[in-house]
């Protein structure tokens, strides 16, 4: 058997491995029950994988932040009973145990029901958003015709949970933070949605598997036809990514939790397990938005090069998801927090117009799909100009009146 064929067969076996495994377990069940058990197995696997990803993402975040700040990060928690440190890989579980065993303090006069409901609702909505993302060629839990809309509908509901948390705490910092969070989330939902529209437009579908399929193939034999490798796709991806940062309350847009101004924002009055739920929901939201970004712009589960296709699709998805999450962490380690007016100004005066113009660029791109030969260059040039000129002009307007900072004591 030659190598290529071997690769192809192992590839296809690995590709369907999750489905095969599931069918091995549930194949003997009668039909309605089988569907139910299949769904439960799917949900359970998803939660287990994402939960583990969450646990180690917190560790990776702390380790990477540490490395960037000249320190090792958490590395001391031993594995129980064998007392082996092993780079602190047991740290997330120690954190979990600590969160569970801590006292759950509810402020006197707080709205007890809402105070309890807020983290639960937030986590529930974040998990709901995870359901529609295609994790592999055969790995989609919820197949909706309007999956993109579902994703953003469930994501919009998280704002409500943040408000509930802030209001129920009976703490003025919490309430202020909740109002801030609402302003921020609403402001950035617009560019987020607008940046998604071109991808939907080019694929001609709101179903995520179809959007991934539309990004298959390679132009010129090597350049993947992922949306991010087109001018409008690149701009859209950047807008999407920035908005995703803001939507998931990540630095540099973590104003609702700005500890220098608002203690811990809407999390001020939360402790113990409820706080852990908030934390989990934040990371789940981050994973969901990253997964969405991967699906819409980075080709989903498609392999980057033709000869790498033997690696199963879910591995590619995982690699892309992890690299996006690492960029989230990298950005958190780099940028200082914005001010509230800067935040909203950036959204309304920069991202929204850019996203609107990007819509036009994408329309141009899809209309000129038939151009070939030298016209290809014209297509690229026009599209690039349509992206770069507004970017430069809007950027100039955004930074108008801001003199370059002079540092008196630093060089």
């Amino acid at each position: 058997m030659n190598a290529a064929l071997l690769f192809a067969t192992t590839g296809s076996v690995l590709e369907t491995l999750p489905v095969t495994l599931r069918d091995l377990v549930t194949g003997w069940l009668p039909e309605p029950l089988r569907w139910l058990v299949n769904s439960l197995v799917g949900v359970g696997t998803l939660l287990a994988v994402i939960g583990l990803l969450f646990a180690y993402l917190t560790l990776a975040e702390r380790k990477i932040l540490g490395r960037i700040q000249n320190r090792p990060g958490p590395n001391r928690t031993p594995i129980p009973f064998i007392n082996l440190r092993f780079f602190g890989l047991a740290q997330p579980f120690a954190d979990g145990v600590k969160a569970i065993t801590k006292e759950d303090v509810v402020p006197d006069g707080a709205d007890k029901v809402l105070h309890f409901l807020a983290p639960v609702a937030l986590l529930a909505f974040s998990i709901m958003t995870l359901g529609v993302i295609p994790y592999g060629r055969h790995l989609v839990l919820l197949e909706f015709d309007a999956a993109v809309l579902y994703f953003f509908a469930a994501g919009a509901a998280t704002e409500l949970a943040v408000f509930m948390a802030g209001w129920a705490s009976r703490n003025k910092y919490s309430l202020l933070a909740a109002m801030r969070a609402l302003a921020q989330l609403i402001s950035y939902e617009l560019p987020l949605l607008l940046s998604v529209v071109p991808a939907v437009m080019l694929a001609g579908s709101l179903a995520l598997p179809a959007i991934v399929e539309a990004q298959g193939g390679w132009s010129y034999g090597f350049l993947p036809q992922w949306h991010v490798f087109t001018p409008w796709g690149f701009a859209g991806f950047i807008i999407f990514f920035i908005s995703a940062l803001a939507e998931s309350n990540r630095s540099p847009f973590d104003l609702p939790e700005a500890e220098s101004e608002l203690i811990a924002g809407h999390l001020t009055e939360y402790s113990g397990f409820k706080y852990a739920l908030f934390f989990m929901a934040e990371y789940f939201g981050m994973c969901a938005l990253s997964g969405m970004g991967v699906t819409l712009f980075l080709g989903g589960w498609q392999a980057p090069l033709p000869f790498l296709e033997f690696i199963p699709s879910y591995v590619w998805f995982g690699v892309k998801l992890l690299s996006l999450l690492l960029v989230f962490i990298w950005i958190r380690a780099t940028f200082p927090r914005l001010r509230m007016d800067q935040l909203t100004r950036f959204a309304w005066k920069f991202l929204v117009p850019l996203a609107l113009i990007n819509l036009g660029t994408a329309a141009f791109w899809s209309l000129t799909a038939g151009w070939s030969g030298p016209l290809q260059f014209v297509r690229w040039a026009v599209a690039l100009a349509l992206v770069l000129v507004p970017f430069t002009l809007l950027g100039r307007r955004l930074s108008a009146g801001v003199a370059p900072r002079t540092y008196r004591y630093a060089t």
Partner: protein
Amino acid sequence: MLGSGLLQGLAVTAKNFVGSFHDPARYTTVEYPEVKPALPEAYRNFPFLVSENATDPMGTLRCVACQICEKECPPQCIYIEKSKDKKPDAAGKPQIYPAIFAIDTSVCMSCQICVEVCPFDAIKMDQVFEIATTTRFEALLLNREQLAKPNSYYHGIHPTEAAEVDARLAADRKAAEEKAQAAAAAKAAAAAAAAAKAASPAPKAPDESRRSPQGEGGPPTPKPQSERGAVS
């Protein structure tokens, strides 16, 4: 162009991240309990008593229980009781020694004044900082057995300063010996003269020729610690 600064910032943090794996200058954290931090030589914390000899610390303490440090100590954390008898010091001269020398480390503020005022170079600053104990009283009150540390230890923690002190002590001892010899010679000469001239009492040889106890005010002897303090 807008965003170039952001990219520069990202490059800086990325460099630090990669550098932390191979460049010690970018990875300065010491994992403390396992790895002791390398303390700078000038680091000093809590006083200790210098003894000449590691094998017999109590017998070779430089301290002569003059109680200057006890009087000068701002928080008054030093307690000294003089001995009734005299023991020969390192130079072989009989001296009073501290029967009790105790420092309450819960009170001591590491101000180094006791070191500054000591005319015998008998008390010096240590480098310890792990002095936490589980009791509030006994363990924090250090007696002379706990305080005494040999001169070799002093050389280990503050080599430059200890060398200066040793040189000075040696010079002093030499000067004292010369003086004693001169005095002895003078005595001999006087005795000879007295023998020659019938009898008259010999002049008493001054044995205290070293710097004055006032420290800073004392003109002649160089003060290595205060110089180093000014530099560091």
